């Protein structure tokens, strides 16, 4: 039995190898070109946008979705074609390079990588295709044809800190971060500085839901809820969470205790349908307009003047902002505007690391 299976198996293996060797010669891109010669002419009217999403992809109700909003807007306006690919958790550098290369070979322009994970792979691919325009969100790639779309998350978070400091009655506020990556630490740093600059005596609890490469903290409402509940029990009464969909759990917990406030992130969470029943507890949200960044990139390519280099979307130009939906911060708006002015004119420099 054993010998026979072994012989059979090695036979199959040899056959497979022989097949590999015999098929060598034409790469997939050559094959693609052979089969569909028409695709390049189809893209003449409108822009052919290629998007490589981060893990989760379209439909994550968070970061990827805000990019998708920008893409949809661009598509509605300029027509053309939108090709969306999504990352997997088992991705290696080679997968990301291949994903971007596939898009480049198929003639998509611009090609946008959503998330810092694409930084190294984009550098390789962008150098190989100097005629195409690339875009990356949340990172900086050193290549001539890349639009680096970065945000000053710490500035928006600073204003959230000011609002929290002005609204707290217990002199105790909290910050919940999804994962302790540098990006989320910018939120933490800004928030803490905003609180302390307003009132030094206020206590701030900082907590992260997961660590390192475990990104579950961005997608676990139960963890967000437990963390927020813990902070509420210790006496915090304003809680800011920068934790993707985990933040929904935190908002739910805050809604369960009277007189406490939640601060949302990324989107204007007061106006999100699935959070409608908690909206009376959502003080404000720090909005990061990824959609504007990617939309502007597509528009610039459409207009024939591709945007490249590092484009920082800051508080000054509305790249990040503190929204007023619900009107809960109207009474302190004057002080928030004053803080905003100080950041814009450079009197206050917000730290990016806690």
């Amino acid at each position, binding site marked *: *039995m054993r010998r*026979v*299976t*072994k012989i*059979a*198996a*090695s036979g*199959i*293996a040899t056959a*497979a190898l022989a*097949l*590999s060797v015999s*098929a*060598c*010669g*034409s*790469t*997939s*891109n*050559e*094959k693609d070109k052979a*089969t569909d010669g028409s695709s390049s002419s189809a893209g003449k009217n409108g822009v052919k946008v290629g998007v490589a999403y981060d893990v989760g*992809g379209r439909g994550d109700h968070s970061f990827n979705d805000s990019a998708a909003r920008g893409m949809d807007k661009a598509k509605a306006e300029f027509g053309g074609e939108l*090709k969306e*690919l*999504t990352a997997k*958790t*088992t*991705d*290696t*550098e*080679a*997968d990301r390079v*291949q*994903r971007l290369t*596939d898009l480049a070979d*198929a003639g998509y322009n611009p090609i946008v990588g959503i998330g*810092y*994970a694409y*930084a*190294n792979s984009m550098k390789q691919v962008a150098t190989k295709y100097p005629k195409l325009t690339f875009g990356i969100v*949340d*990172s*900086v790639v*050193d290549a001539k044809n890349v639009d*680096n779309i*970065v945000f000053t998350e710490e500035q928006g978070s600073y204003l959230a800190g000011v609002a929290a400091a002005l609204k707290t009655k217990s002199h105790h506020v909290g910050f919940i971060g999804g994962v*302790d*990556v*540098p*990006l989320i630490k*910018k939120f933490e740093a800004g928030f803490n500085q905003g609180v302390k600059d307003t009132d030094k005596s206020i206590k701030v609890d900082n907590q992260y839901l*997961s*660590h*390192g*490469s*475990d990104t579950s903290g961005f997608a676990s409402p139960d963890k967000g809820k437990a963390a927020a509940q813990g902070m509420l029990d210790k006496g915090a009464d304003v809680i800011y969470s920068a934790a993707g969909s985990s933040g929904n759990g935190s908002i739910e917990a805050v809604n369960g205790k009277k007189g406490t406030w939640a601060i949302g992130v990324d989107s204007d969470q007061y106006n999100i349908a699935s959070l409608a029943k908690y909206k009376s507890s959502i003080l404000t949200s720090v909005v990061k307009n990824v959609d504007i960044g990617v939309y502007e990139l597509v528009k610039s390519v459409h207009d024939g003047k591709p945007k490249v280099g590092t484009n920082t979307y800051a508080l000054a130009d509305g790249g990040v902002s503190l929204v007023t939906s619900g009107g809960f911060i109207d009474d302190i708006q004057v002080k928030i505007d004053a803080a905003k002015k100080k950041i814009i004119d450079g009197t206050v420099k917000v730290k*990016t*690391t806690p």
Partner: protein
Amino acid sequence: MKKFTARIDKERLILALAAPVLAVVAALVVTALVILATGKDPFAAFSDMLSYGSASDSQIYILNKATTYYLAGIAVAIGFRMNLFNIGVDGQYRMAAFFAAVVGGALSLPGIVQIPLMIATAMLVGAMWAGIAGILKVTRGVSEVISTIMLNAIATAVIGYLMQPGRLGQLDDAGTLVSTKPLPKSSWFFSIDTGPAGVLWGFFVIAALAGLAYWFVLGRTRFGFDLRAVGQSESAASASGVSVKKMIATSMIISGAMAGLIGMPTLLNDSHMYSNDFPLGIGFTGIAIALLGRNHPVGIALGALLWGFLERTTNHLEFMGYDKEILGVIQGVIVLCVVIAYEVVRRYGLKRQQQRVGAELAAQAARSIKKEVTA
């Protein structure tokens, strides 16, 4: 006599081939139905997979992926052969790759010294991390399933803690990506540039050697015999003088050392540093591949190649407008089909054997009766 064995072998050969063929056919049918249900044409999808998967650059990609997956499959299979369910391969390889990257980034020795040193570090760290579960099992009777799952989470936290700017990590220019210090170019593993098809990672040589070692140690040594004996029956093994506890601890450690190699192709041939985006979850892929390959070194190789092929071609399916979730569906269906098909074929074979033995016994009885009558 010779004729008799030839017949048996033929039947067994058919049975042995029946299982994988049955599994693949069943998986194809189910997948076709799923694609149909999404309103797309399954045959167009399959033909696209075949043509894209056989392109030269796809083959390089598949071989590179399979190198990693093969090591993962072997690491898991070592545990399986001994009835140990090492779920912790995932944490073990990440710990191992992280520390190997730290050691590699800190030193700048000649490659010929540094590469083996990094590989040794990885195997040692993997072995130690798995060893914790092994020791817990033999001294306190803690189920290795539970302890290794927990150790996975602890590994994530330990790496997260150590890989901070100022500890063992460093920030990139944009301030968003933390990684260990990149390896010096001298300690990159050799690779073969095949031109437009891409770069073939040299680490497949090590993977092949690991497979050979696995086959030799388990199939041709006293230790391997003891290990399989414990796997089949602990009481029988201990009755024949094998120290079961020692075997459990040892095989857990060997499984961990093998797991330590999993991250090495990526680290030494591709990323050259350990960062936030180091691939995650390959340990679990290894479980599926060990199941597919029936713990056999050649079977695992085929499983790993199949897995690489599926990942490569379904990536392209997404590009062609099919749903990206189709990959998960196909992989799940194949594993299920393989497990079920082998069981069905095994039972069928057993039934055939019983029937044949029954028939022979009946014939014998009939003959002896006839003899009595004639006498």
